[in-house]
């Protein structure tokens, strides 16, 4: 038996992104549900007992909510899918001429509902994949693995994330205080009136935190030669410019031939800038998460799911995007099932997370 340890957060996120990428390539509900089930099984098998591990349920509920909203809109506002199988007809709200093209109520067809269901299911599966990553590795731990030059930006995000719950607590406390003054604590006015004190409190806390961080050596830098500092700035700037240009080239239709090389060059320059920039930072890392065989396996299984799904979906588009006009029963190709099941590897091949003795 392997000794329990936390897997590198990057591995979990790569795995989840792979599953998510696979989900975007298909509207076949059977494949989507299989993907969600794979993600759910791995979460159940490998999540720890940290507070963020419970976030999976929240993402699951969010996915169901998105699906519900998508269906509701398809019923109320109709669907652009031309359909012949009418399920029922809602009373249609007459709209003025200028609102042509918008419809409220009216015929609800099997085809329209199915299209909405498939589309909503795809979005929900994507959310479930992100939720799985979130439950398996906290975003804060992912940020810790950033290169040194990005460390400050990472800290800003972590601090912002811990501030959100504090703000909520402040609002609750000050609303309670309104009650103590004999004012009502219900309604929007009550929440708005505590806005200023809450902001004041948040500001005071950030100043206190900044002072605490400064006294603990945050922002100490090593002396680097001027030439190196200049090279860092130039590389980063050139890299970002290149990425912007390439993005423009890729997004505008037509002459995109030059865009890909420019994008690669830009990425390379920006990455080199980051690496050089890390030299300015004196930070070391306490117990960094190792990247070992299990991490390769996890990230690899996610990549394999994505790659195989993409290849299979171009070979057999009919199976991955079942037609809704006319409605057909979606088939589940064996190759796709095998490809998606590769995502289960981490549930067996990775060490279990350490559990607190309690």
């Amino acid at each position, binding site marked *: 038996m392997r000794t329990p340890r936390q897997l590198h957060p990057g591995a979990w996120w790569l795995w989840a992104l792979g599953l998510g990428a696979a989900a975007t390539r298909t509207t076949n509900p059977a494949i989507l549900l299989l993907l969600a089930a794979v993600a759910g099984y791995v979460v159940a098998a490998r999540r720890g007992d940290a507070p963020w591990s419970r976030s999976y349920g929240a993402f699951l509920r969010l996915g169901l909510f998105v699906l519900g909203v998508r269906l509701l809109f398809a019923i109320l506002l109709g669907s652009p899918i031309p359909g012949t199988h009418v399920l029922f007809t809602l009373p249609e709200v007459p709209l003025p001429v200028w609102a042509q093209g918008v419809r409220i109520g009216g015929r609800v067809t099997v085809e329209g509902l199915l299209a909405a269901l498939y589309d909503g299911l795809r979005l929900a599966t994507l959310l479930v994949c992100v939720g799985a990553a979130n439950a398996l590795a906290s975003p804060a731990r992912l940020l810790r693995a950033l290169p040194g030059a990005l460390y400050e930006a990472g800290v800003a995000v972590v601090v912002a994330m811990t501030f959100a719950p504090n703000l909520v607590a402040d609002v609750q406390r000050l609303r309670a205080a309104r009650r103590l003054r004999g004012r009502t604590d219900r309604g929007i006015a009550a929440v708005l009136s505590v806005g200023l004190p809450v902001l004041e409190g948040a500001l005071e806390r950030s100043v206190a935190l900044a002072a605490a961080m400064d006294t*603990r050596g945050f922002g100490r830098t090593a002396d680097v030669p001027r030439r190196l500092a200049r090279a860092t700035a130039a590389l980063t700037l050139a890299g970002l410019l290149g990425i912007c240009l390439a993005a423009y080239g890729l997004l505008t239709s037509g002459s995109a031939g030059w865009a890909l090389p420019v994008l690669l060059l830009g990425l390379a320059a920006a990455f080199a800038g980051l690496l050089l920039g890390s030299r300015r930072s004196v930070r070391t890392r306490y117990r960094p998460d190792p990247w070992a065989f299990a991490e390769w396996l996890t990230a690899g299984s996610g990549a394999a799911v994505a790659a195989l799904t993409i290849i299979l979906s171009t070979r057999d588009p009919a199976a991955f995007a079942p037609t809704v006009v006319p409605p057909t029963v979606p088939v589940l190709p064996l190759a796709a099932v095998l490809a998606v099941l590769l995502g289960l590897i981490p549930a067996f091949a990775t060490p279990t997370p350490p559990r607190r003795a309690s």
Partner: protein
Amino acid sequence: MITFEQVSVQYADAAAPALSNVDLTVPEGELCLLVGPSGSGKSTLLGTVSGLVPHFTGGTLHGRVTVGGRDTREHRPRELADLVGTVGQDPLAHFVTDTVEDELAYGMESLGLPADVMRRRVEETLDLLGLADLRDRALTSLSGGQQQRVAIGSVLTVHPRVLVLDEPTSALDPGAAEEVLAVLQRLVHDLGTTVLMAEHRLERVVQYADQVLLLTPGAAPVLGEPAEVMAHSPVHPPVVGLGRLAGWQPLPLSVRDARRKAASLRDRLDGHRPAAAGVPAAAPIAVAERLAVRRGPVAALRGVDLVIRPGEITALMGRNGAGKSTLLGGLVGLHAPASGSIRINGRTPHRTRPAELIREVGLVPQDPRDLLYGESVAAECTAADADAGAAPGTCRALVERLLPGIADATHPRDLSEGQRLTLALAVVLTARPPLLLLDEPTRGLDYAAKARLVAILRDLAVEGHAVLLATHDVELAAELAHRTVILAEGEIVADGPTAEVVVSSPAFAPQVAKVLAPGPWLTVHQVAEALSA
């Protein structure tokens, strides 16, 4: 180790300098305690050592402060981080990461120590501070004392030669404060760390100090042996007050020293009894029956029975997290009972409209600023009159009575801690509630402000108000409360006259009771009265 040469600090918008002409040296390996009333510049002095003054707070620093040979004017706080560790009053404001182990490593990561050194020092610090069992825990799930120990640990891992602490125990219950002080004691004795600490609760710390630095506004600072300084200090713990009263030489600073000298005093007091503070028996104002309150997954109160009568001052004590604030919140309707009931003059608080409820019960919260929204004292008073439906000028008259000489235009944020508390008290009293609740009122108050608060609350009780105060301050409870209720794990474990409840308890007994046990004496004042009788 730390030298001050002709140091003065002047803030831009202040009339007088916050600190003037400080000229002294703190030698290595000493625990130096800063004492003095509010506004005497304790925090400013600590800030000059860590470099936060003037780099972070602004203001003008004259003279020179050197720590371990480094001039703090030329070194920013981050460049002193390997030399000076700073811990404030609120550990949560200090934490950068989210788990104990990461927090301990944070400072070392910033300094760029090698991984193996970090690993070793984290383990050592976990053992030194007794945190080994908590290493994976989220910081927010720890108790107050544990959090403060983690905060101290997080600055210790970089092996600073100086530790600067600004009121490290004032937010803690007596037990947790003992924990933290024991750790500091060990650091000074075993590691030779120089500790500079400011603290209002002298009764907790003065016996550990090697030197005391007395700051008084408008006078030169005095550095000396604790007993010598305490003999003349305007702020002093009860044990020193007792020693001065009995004329003991040298002045005892700890209960142990005082007990050795107290045999004759105990004999003299034999046969005397403190004047019993009688409370007229009256119909209860508030009754809680088998009250249970849940806060999230936690059962904060379990089966609490409590009866509060007019004219009686009750102290509510217990560990951090024992349910004191929840009980107060339940009485003002902030938390609905999960089972059981609360009745205040026949009303159920959480079902009563706030505008009616404030005529029955008023709460001054832990941070009085929560209650104050106004731009000025006058605006605050006008709003309070309107909220309470009282005649215009009622609140202003109360402010004038409780806190004479405050200008109408003063912004509530510019008041001192004590003044702000009194303003919040006046706002609450505007609705004339017969039941008055205070949550931790003496946090951050110096002895003078505390004495004023005691006088005000006594007057209110004589007028027939019932007062219930949650506090960690055993001396305050001894001084003020007719009755003491001790909560633990959401249950009442002791309820009775203060003298009976606290005298036998090692954690909650005031110093005078410990010195004069088994006598029923609680305060220096009682002893003085008995001796002069």
